[in-house]
C-alpha cells in the first residue's frame, strides 16, 4: 500500500514537472547586456523594462540582465539609466526560443533628441536592501576634497561612516573597528588601501565605475569582516578610440591612456604620483616627507554579447622618509591582480568567476633611533571565486557560489622588552553561499546563508560558521517600504597595535590568536524608505550590532604565559536618517547619524575611540550652467571619547631593588588616566566648497576645479600631545586647484 502511494506521488511529481516544462516551453527569455554606445563599457544597474507590462529587470553589476518566461508576442523593450539616453527596441518572442537583446546606450553628452533619463541609476539596488549605498564616479567628483579627489574620503558623507580626523581616509562603520572593513577592488582584497598616513586612498576615483558600500547586514557572498564591505568596480577603457587624460593638482599628477586593443577589447592605464610633500605638510601641519605612486591597468575582452573577460592590475607604493636620522622611515606597497570572466553557459544560469591575488607589505626602518624598533609585515592573499545566478522565474532568483583563498600573514617586530618576534600564519579560507530572492506580492524576500567551510572542517561551531543572512522588504504605502535585515559575520584576522593610537602608520595583520574564537557579530537592521516628493527620497534606519566575540587586550596579564588578548564583547546601536533631493538645477543631500558603541573588556565597559554620538552631513550641489557645478558641504560631529588625565605618581621600577634599596628610587612619573574614554573632545564642524567647470576647447575636454576646505577656518582638534602640552588641530582653511585635460 505504501509502495503504491509513493509510486503515485512520484508519477504526480513527474507530471507536474513535465507540465511546468511544457508551460516553460511556451515562454521565452530575453537576455543581454547594457553597454555604453561610445566606450562599449557595460552599464550596471540599468533598468530594462518590457513596455506596457509590469515585467522588467535591472542589469547586474556587470551589465547583464535576463527577463525570463515571457509569453510569445511582440514587445517593446526599453533600457534606461541615468546619464544615458533611453533606448527602445522591438522584439518578437517565439515559443521556447531565448533571445539575446543587447543595448547600446548613448551617453547624454552626445546630442540627441531622445528623452534623457534623470532618475536615479541605482534605485532598484537601494530599494531592495538596508544598509547599502552605491556611489558612482559622478557622485565622488562632486564632493569637495583635500587637494585631490578620493574615493574613501567621499564615502565619509554616508551615514554610519565615521572618520576620526580630516587627515585620514580610514573610517569606522557603525561602531566597528578600522580593521573590520573589507576592501574589494575588482574582487582583489586590499589590506591597507591608504596613501600618505591615510590622507588618501589608493583607489583613484577616475578608474572607478561604481562602489557598493554595505554598512551592515551584507548579503551572502561577502564574509570575513564584521562591519562593512566596500566593493569597488572599475570601469572599462574606451573601445572606440585612443584617448588620453592628464590631471595635475597641488598634491599629485596623473596620466591616463585608454583605447581599443584587438577587436572587441579595450584597455586603460592610469598612473599617479605625488608631486611635492609641501602640500602634505600644510595638510597635517608637520614636516612629513611623504611620497606615493599608484597605477591601475585593465584590459577587457568581449568576444560575444554576454561573455566578457577582464584583467585588472593594481600597484601602489608609499614612502615616508624622514631626514632626521632619529626618526624612522616607513614604506608600504600594495599589489593586486585579478582575472575574471562572465558567461551564460546554459539558459538562465549566469556565471561570474575570478582568480585573484593581492600582496601588501610594509617596513619600518628605525635608522639610528633608540626608542623605535624596526618592523616589517606582509599579507599575501590568493584565491578563486565563482558565483552563479539562476533566473528561475519572473519574480525569483537564486544565487550560489564559493570562494577558496589562502592568506599568508607575516609580522616581524621587536616587542617592548626588545625581543624580536616573527609571527607567521598561513591558513585556508573556504566559503560557500546560497541566496534566494523572491517577490511575493508587495513583499520582497532576500534570504540566504553564508558558510565558512574551512573553520567548520577544523571543528568550528556550526552556529558561528553557518551564517544566516536575511533581508525583507515590504511595500507598505505608495513608495514607502519597510525593511528588515539580519546577518551573522565572523572575522579571523585583525590588525595589531595600540587601539588608542591617533594615526597608525604601520598596520600589521595577524590571525586571531589560537586561544580565542574568531571575532563574531550579529547585525539587526530595521528601516523605512520612500519618496516625500517625486524628487526627494528619505531613508530611516535603526540598527543593533552585537559583537559576540572581539579580541581585546588582557588587562589581567601578569605572567609571561598569560595571553596578550582575551575575548571581549560589544554592542553598537544607532539610527540613521538620509534625505536626498535631485533635480536638474540642484541636488541636496543630508544625513544624520545617532549612535552608541560600547566595548566590554571582561567587565571594563568603555566607548571606543571612534564612538561619535551625533554626526551630520549636509551637501548641496548646484548645476549652475552647463558644465559649471558648485558644491557646498557642511559636516558636524560630536566629540570623540578620550580618557582624562587625573594625576601623576612616581612609579617605582625596582630596577635595582631585587635585592637592593628600593626606597631610594625616585621613580619616573606615571600618568594616571580617569575612567577609560569617559570624557569627550570638543565637537567637530567644517564647511567646504568646490567649483568645477568643464569645457571643450580646440578638441580638448578641459576641467578646472577649485576646492575651499574649512571655509571659516574652524580649529577642530586632532590630538593633544600630553607629553608636550601641544594641541594639534586638523586641517586649517585649505584652498586647492585642479586641472584636467582630456582628448
Amino acid at each position: 500500500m505504501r509502495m503504491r502511494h509513493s509510486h503515485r506521488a512520484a508519477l504526480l511529481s513527474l507530471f507536474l514537472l513535465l507540465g511546468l516544462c511544457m508551460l516553460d516551453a511556451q515562454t521565452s527569455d530575453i537576455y543581454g547586456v547594457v553597454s555604453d554606445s561610445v566606450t562599449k563599457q557595460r552599464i550596471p544597474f540599468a533598468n530594462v523594462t518590457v513596455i506596457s507590462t509590469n515585467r522588467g529587470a535591472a542589469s547586474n553589476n556587470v551589465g547583464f540582465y535576463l527577463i525570463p518566461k515571457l509569453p510569445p508576442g511582440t514587445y517593446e523593450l526599453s533600457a534606461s539609466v541615468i546619464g544615458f539616453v533611453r533606448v527602445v527596441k522591438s522584439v518578437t518572442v517565439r515559443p521556447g526560443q531565448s533571445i539575446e537583446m543587447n543595448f547600446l546606450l548613448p551617453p547624454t553628452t552626445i546630442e540627441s533628441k531622445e528623452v534623457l533619463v534623470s532618475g536615479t541609476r541605482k534605485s532598484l539596488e537601494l530599494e531592495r536592501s538596508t544598509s547599502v549605498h552605491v556611489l558612482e564616479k559622478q557622485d565622488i567628483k562632486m564632493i569637495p576634497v583635500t587637494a585631490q579627489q578620493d574615493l574613501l574620503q567621499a564615502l565619509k558623507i554616508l551615514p554610519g561612516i565615521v572618520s576620526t580626523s580630516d587627515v585620514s581616509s580610514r573610517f569606522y562603520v557603525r561602531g566597528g573597528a578600522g580593521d573590520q572593513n573589507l576592501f574589494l577592488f575588482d574582487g582583489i582584497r586590499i589590506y591597507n588601501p591608504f596613501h600618505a598616513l591615510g590622507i588618501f586612498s589608493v583607489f583613484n576615483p577616475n578608474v572607478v565605475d561604481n562602489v557598493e558600500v554595505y554598512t551592515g547586514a551584507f548579503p551572502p557572498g561577502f564574509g570575513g569582516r564584521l562591519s562593512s564591505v566596500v566593493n569597488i568596480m572599475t570601469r572599462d577603457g574606451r573601445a572606440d578610440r585612443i584617448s588620453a587624460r592628464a590631471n595635475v593638482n597641488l598634491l599629485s599628477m596623473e596620466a591616463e591612456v585608454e583605447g581599443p586593443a584587438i577587436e572587441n577589447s579595450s584597455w586603460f592605464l592610469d598612473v599617479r604620483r605625488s608631486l611635492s610633500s609641501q602640500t602634505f605638510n600644510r595638510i597635517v601641519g608637520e614636516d612629513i616627507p611623504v611620497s606615493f605612486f599608484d597605477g591601475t591597468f585593465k584590459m577587457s575582452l568581449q568576444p560575444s554579447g554576454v561573455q566578457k573577460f577582464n584583467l585588472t592590475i593594481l600597484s601602489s607604493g608609499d614612502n615616508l622618509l624622514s631626514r632626521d636620522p632619529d626618526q624612522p622611515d616607513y614604506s608600504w606597497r600594495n599589489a593586486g591582480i585579478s582575472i575574471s570572466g562572465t558567461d551564460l553557459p546554459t539558459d538562465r544560469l549566469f556565471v561570474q568567476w575570478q582568480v585573484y591575488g593581492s600582496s601588501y607589505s610594509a617596513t619600518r626602518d628605525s635608522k639610528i633611533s633608540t626608542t623605535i624598533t624596526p618592523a616589517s609585515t606582509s599579507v599575501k592573499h590568493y584565491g578563486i571565486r565563482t558565483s552563479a545566478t539562476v533566473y528561475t522565474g519572473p519574480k525569483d532568483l537564486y544565487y550560489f557560489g564559493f570562494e577558496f583563498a589562502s592568506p599568508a600573514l607575516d609580522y616581524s617586530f621587536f616587542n617592548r622588552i626588545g625581543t624580536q618576534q616573527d609571527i607567521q600564519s598561513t591558513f585556508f579560507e573556504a566559503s560557500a553561499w546560497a541566496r534566494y530572492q523572491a517577490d511575493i506580492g508587495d513583499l520582497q524576500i532576500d534570504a540566504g546563508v553564508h558558510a565558512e567551510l574551512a573553520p567548520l572542517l577544523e571543528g568550528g561551531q556550526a552556529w558561528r560558521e553557518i551564517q544566516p543572512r536575511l533581508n525583507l522588504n515590504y511595500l507598505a504605502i505608495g513608495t514607502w517600504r519597510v525593511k528588515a535585515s539580519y546577518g551573522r559575520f565572523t572575522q579571523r584576522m585583525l590588525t595589531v597595535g595600540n587601539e588608542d593610537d591617533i594615526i597608525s602608520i604601520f598596520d600589521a595583520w595577524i590571525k586571531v590568536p589560537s586561544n580565542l574564537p574568531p571575532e563574531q557579530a550579529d547585525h539587526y537592521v530595521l528601516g523605512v524608505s520612500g519618496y516625500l516628493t517625486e524628487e526627494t527620497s528619505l531613508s530611516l534606519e535603526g540598527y543593533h550590532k552585537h559583537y559576540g566575540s572581539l579580541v581585546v587586550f588582557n588587562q589581567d596579564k601578569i605572567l609571561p604565559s598569560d595571553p596578550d588578548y582575551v575575548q571581549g564583547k560589544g554592542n553598537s546601536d544607532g539610527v540613521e536618517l538620509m534625505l536626498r533631493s535631485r533635480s536638474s538645477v540642484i541636488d541636496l543631500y543630508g544625513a544624520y547619524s545617532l549612535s552608541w558603541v560600547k566595548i566590554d573588556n571582561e567587565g571594563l565597559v568603555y566607548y571606543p575611540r571612534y564612538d561619535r554620538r551625533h554626526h551630520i552631513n549636509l551637501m548641496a550641489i548646484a548645476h549652475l550652467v552647463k558644465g559649471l557645478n558648485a558644491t557646498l558641504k557642511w559636516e558636524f560631529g560630536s566629540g570623540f571619547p578620550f580618557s582624562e588625565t587625573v594625576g601623576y605618581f612616581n612609579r617605582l621600577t625596582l630596577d635595582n631593588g631585587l635585592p637592593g634599596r628600593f626606597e631610594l628610587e625616585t621613580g619616573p612619573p606615571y600618568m594616571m588616566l580617569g575612567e577609560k574614554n569617559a570624557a569627550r573632545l570638543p565637537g567637530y564642524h567644517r564647511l567646504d566648497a568646490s567649483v568645477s567647470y568643464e569645457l571643450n576647447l580646440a578638441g580638448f575636454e578641459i576641467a578646472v576645479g577649485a576646492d575651499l576646505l574649512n571655509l571659516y577656518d574652524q580649529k577642530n582638534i586632532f590630538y593633544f600631545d600630553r607629553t608636550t602640552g601641544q594641541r594639534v588641530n586638523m586641517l586649517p582653511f585649505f584652498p586647492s586647484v585642479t586641472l584636467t585635460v582630456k582628448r
Partner: protein
Amino acid sequence: MNTHQIQTSALIPKPSIVAACVMLLGFLSCDQPFDPRAALDQQMVLYALLSNDREAQYVRVEQNYMPQGADPNQDTSNTALPDVIVTLKESARLYRFRDTVLSRPDTSRYRSPMQMYVLSPFIPEHGKAYDVLAQSRSFGMAYASVVIPTAPTLDIAVSASGILQNPISHGPRELVQFSAQLSLLAKGYIARLYLYYDVLKGSEWVEERIELPLGTWKTDPNNFGLDMLYYPQMTASPATGLIGANFTNGFLQSIIKQLTTVQYLNNKIVYKWAVFAVLQADQNLFDYYTSIQEYRDPRSIRLDEPTYSKVNGGLGFAGAYTLDSLLVVLPENFPGNRQ
C-alpha cells in the same frame, strides 16, 4: 517615461542668504579651549617591600600630583606625606614605623631629602603574613597584605662542587648545577650565582662580588666572552616549587681571567666564596614587577602600558621577598689567587 526634469530655481538660496550663512558659521568658528586634564583624583601612594635581608624595613608614603605644565618632570614639589601613621600588623602584634629622612641619591629632579617611614630593627619571618597600614588625616587609610615565603631548600650538585673548587681544570661547557625547593608561597624567583673575592686596593683589602651570567646573546655556543651577557630574571615559580639553576663554567673561567689578568693584574686578589642566592617574591611583588617590566614576555605583542596595584585605598604596591643563599667556600689554591 522617466522624465524627472522640474523647475527648482526656487530651491536655490539667494547669494545674500548664502553669505549670511557663511558669516554666521564664521562667527561660530572658534578655537574651543581644551585641556585633557581633569581635577586631580587625590590618592595616597604606598610603597612597601618587606625583606629578610636587612634589619630595617622602609615604607614610602606619598601623594599623587598634577603638574602645572605638561611635563611632570618639571614638578619638583615634595610628594611625601608626613602626617601618616604607618603600622605593620602580624596576628595580634602591631609594629609602628617612625618617620625618617634619607639622603636622596638621585637629585636630578627632587633636591630635598627623602621622607619615609622605617621600622628597625625588624626582620620579617619566613611564612608569616603581615598587613601594612597607612593612616593619614587627609587621605584616609591605605593598606595591603603581604605574605613572606617560607625558607627554600637549596642544594648543589656534586659535580658543581668539583667545578667550583678548580674551574680551570674543567671544560668550559660543563655546568655548575644548583637546585632549590621553593616555598609554595613564592610566586616568582630569581636564582643567581655570585663569586665573592677580596682585592687589595692600596693597603686595604676590599670585599667585592661579581655575578655570573646565564649566557650571551651571541649565537656562537663556544663564545664565553664577557659582552652581550644576560643574567637571571624574575621567573614564575613552578607549581611544584622545584627549580634547577645551571651556570656555565666557561663564563666562570672568563670572569676569573678577566679579574686576575686584566682588571686586577697588579693587585693581590683572593677568591673566597661562590654564593648561590635565591630571591623569592610574594604574589604582590611578582605581579607588580612583571607588569612594570612589560610582563617579561618575549612573545608578547602588546604595545600598551598598564599598571598594577593591590593597595586598598591607594596606589603603589606592598610586597615582600626573601633572600636565602648557599655558600660554597673556595680553596686557598683557587686559580688566580694572589696573596
